[in-house]
Each structure stands twice: as C-alpha cells, then as structure tokens.
C-alpha cells in the first residue's frame, strides 16, 4: 500500500498537507475542536507521521462543520476543511469503522437519497438516518423523544413534505455515475 501521506496528498482536498507549519491557527479557529478526538493541527501532524489507522478511524474529521474558518485563516493555504473531506472519503473507501459519532450514517442517508431521487428528500433522508442508528437513539431516549416536536412543527409549517420530488429519470444520474466508476476503474 502506498505511503499514507502521499496517498492523502494525491486525494482532491489533501494536496496541501505538506505545506503545514503546525502553527495551530486551524485548531484555534475551529468552533468544534473540543469535540474532536484529535483537533485539526494534530490530525495533520498524524497524517504526516504516517498514522493511517489512528487518523482514519478517528471521529475528528466527521465533526468538521465545513464552515471554512480554518481555511480562510491558514497562513499556508493548507485548506483543512478540504483535507477533512479527503480524510472522510479515504476512511469510507478503506472501510474504517468510526466510533463516537453518527455523522457518517447521516451522510450515507443523504447520499442515498440523492441516488434514489436525484434530489434530497429531507423527510425520507431523516427517517432513514434515524432507522440506521436505532441503538444510538435507544441509548439516549429523552433526546430522541424531544426530536419529535421539531419534526412536527416543520411538517405543520409545510416544510417537510412526505413525498419526494423526483427528477425525471433521476436525471440519468445512476447511468452517469456507473459510467464514471467504469472510467475510474480503467485509469
């Protein structure tokens, strides 16, 4: 298998990982660094130290809100937001299991909704997400019950249609994506 840091640098979003000077501006700017297993500066150091398993099985990048504050402040143009997305993609592709966050399940429900309808059907996406994390919901019953009034009030204000709006022939997206994966496979 290829050296981890080279692999990250070859993934769209990870190109600038070697430019980091470890100043910590990213971690200082991140609104959710406290919740991450390893904050952004540290994750970058770990990528460069070749710590593949520790990085790709951590929950850090899944906490990224994509607010891009680190990206605009980074003095070296590392683009840590894009790097987080690249690490997420690598973790998924290499089959790493992540504990301590259900965000991967949310993202899978979101992408599956696009594949099913061509567009995201928010109600369907939410239902499928919650069904995919039932043990998590059972572990925090009070919070789970308290979610219902939000959904109810969105529905009552006509903001959560129960039926999806489908794109004609799903915009041929399945065929386009199938073709793209064939092209990638042959590269």
């Amino acid at each position: 298998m290829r050296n981890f840091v080279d692999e990250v640098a070859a993934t769209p979003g990870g190109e600038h990982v070697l430019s980091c000077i470890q100043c910590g501006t990213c971690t200082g700017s991140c609104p959710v660094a406290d919740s991450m297993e390893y904050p952004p500066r540290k994750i970058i150091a770990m990528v460069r130290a070749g710590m593949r398993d520790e990085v790709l099985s951590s929950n850090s990048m899944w906490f990224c809100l994509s607010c891009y504050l680190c990206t605009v402040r980074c003095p070296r143009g590392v683009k840590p937001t894009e790097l987080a997305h690249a690490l997420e993609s690598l973790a998924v592709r290499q089959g790493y299991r992540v504990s301590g966050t259900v965000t991967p399940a949310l993202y899978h429900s979101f992408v599956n909704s696009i594949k099913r309808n061509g567009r995201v059907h928010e109600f369907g996406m939410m239902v499928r997400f919650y069904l995919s994390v039932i043990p998590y919901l059972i572990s925090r019953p009070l919070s789970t019950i308290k979610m219902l009034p939000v959904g109810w009030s969105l529905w009552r204000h006509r903001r959560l249609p129960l039926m999806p709006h489908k794109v004609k022939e799903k915009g041929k997206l399945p065929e386009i994506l199938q073709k793209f994966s064939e092209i990638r496979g042959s590269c």
Partner: protein
Amino acid sequence: MKDYAFYPGCSAESTGRGYGLSVQAVAGSLEIQLIELEDWNCCGSTPYGSLNELEAMVVAARNLALAEKTGLDLVTPCSSCYVTLKKANLHLQDHPRLMAMVNEALAVAGLEYHGKVSVRHIVEVLTDDITPGLITEKIKRRLEGLKVAPYYGCQLVRPQYGFDDAELPGSLDSLIECLGAEAVPYPVKARCCGGSLILSEEDLALGLINKLLKSAADNGAHCLATPCPLCQTNLDAYQGKVNSKFKTGYNLPVFFITQLIGLALGLDDKSLGLDTNIVSPRDVLTQLAGVKSGT
C-alpha cells in the same frame, strides 16, 4: 428584465420553502427573471464530497452542464449549493484530465461541460447587479425602526470567493439598510450554526445556535435575516429547543433576507411564505404596520 439560470436547491422545496417562494416573488418585483434549470439534481452538498470526493464532482457537474446550455449565469439562493457548485466548477477548470473523465460520463446523458459557467449567490446578484440603490427606489414601505441582526452564516462568504469579506462581510448589512431597517452590530455574523450536524450532533449544534441568538438579542435585534436555508431552519425550528436547554427566552423571528426585501416591496405575506416561519413574525409585522400608520 435580466435573465439568470436558477438553481433553487433541494431545501427550497421543503425546509427552505419560505425562501423558494420569496426569492421568486422578489425577483418578479425587481425585474429579474430566474429561469429554473430543467431537471436539476442535488448539488451533492457536503455529505457527497465527504463520502466520495470525485463522484461528488460528477453530481455537481451535471448541473453545471445544464446551466452552460442556457448561456446564463447560474444563480442559487442556497449557500451550501453555492459553495459546492463553485468549488466543483473551479476544481474541474483546474484539472483538465478530471474534466475529460467527467465529460465522458456525462455523455451517457447527452451532456458536456466546458467550464464556462459563472456560479453566483442571490445575495451577490442583489448586491452587485441589482444594487441596494435600485432596491431603495422600488420599495413601497420602509422598514423604519426594525432592528435586524444580519446573519450571513459561513458558506456564503467562505471559502473566499471574492464578493465579500470572509469574516466581517457587509453585503447583507447593506441590503437590510437599503430597506430602511437597521442592521445592528453583530460580531458573530459569519459564524457557523452547526449546519447538518444538528441531526447527528444536536447538543453541539444547539450550543452554537445559542451563541448566535444571544449575540442578536444582546445587540437589541428584533429579528434576524439570513440568506442560508439551513441556517434559517436551525435558528428558527430549533429556537424552542435552545430555550429549553439553556433556560433562555428568545423570541426572535428568523427571516430569509428575501422575505424582508419582499415586505419592503409591499408583497403580501403569503407570496413570501411568511406562514412557514416557525417563530412567528407577527409581532414584528404588527410593529411595522404601526410605524406605517403612525400609531
């Protein structure tokens, strides 16, 4: 009448319904025509790029190819669609080999993209093309006395695509002021609301939303105005939850910026989708009506 290709984004049909309605209503009054892209698909947003960064480019590129056929600028009201489409556009323009692969895949649907589309946000169009000065000329009732916290959210101005400052932007302030309302100082105007993590990391997101609402209240705002559908949903639909979690008593309506512009243009509540707002804007509207009739 100026024409634009229009990309509403998935939320305009559901959680951001008030946005979808008010954008079109306001466009009509400002003599711009937003021509919806036929059969557009989801841009992919953050989740697609997080799970499969290359496939996400293809999903976004289908929309860019559809837009290119119209020969018009592509305008979206959604900040997340804006970043996603803009990012894919720049990446494809910079990577001809990937562009060729994407085009080979798009050819299955008879589509092709040459990298010619300009992706723009509705706030950029209102600020730079229509201009606040022209909006002021068209308003029928000035929103005198209304104090508004201008909440940009993060993805409208970041990563930096140039039409406004990445941390202390001013475009939304000028749109609010041109209606006769007051944009209050709002230091957290471009901080994050938690985005889609409201579903998977609710406690974390509620903490961020609390900070945004607190700053608006501390600065004397009667309401907030935002150009982002996800920000609006988080601040509006979850305001009750913030109140119960943090023992606060916020009652701050959260308008889409186009709803506020529509009110100043004299458009009716229904066409602006004001009945879809969860924190009721009724008190604010009554206050405005009072100012208008001089009571």
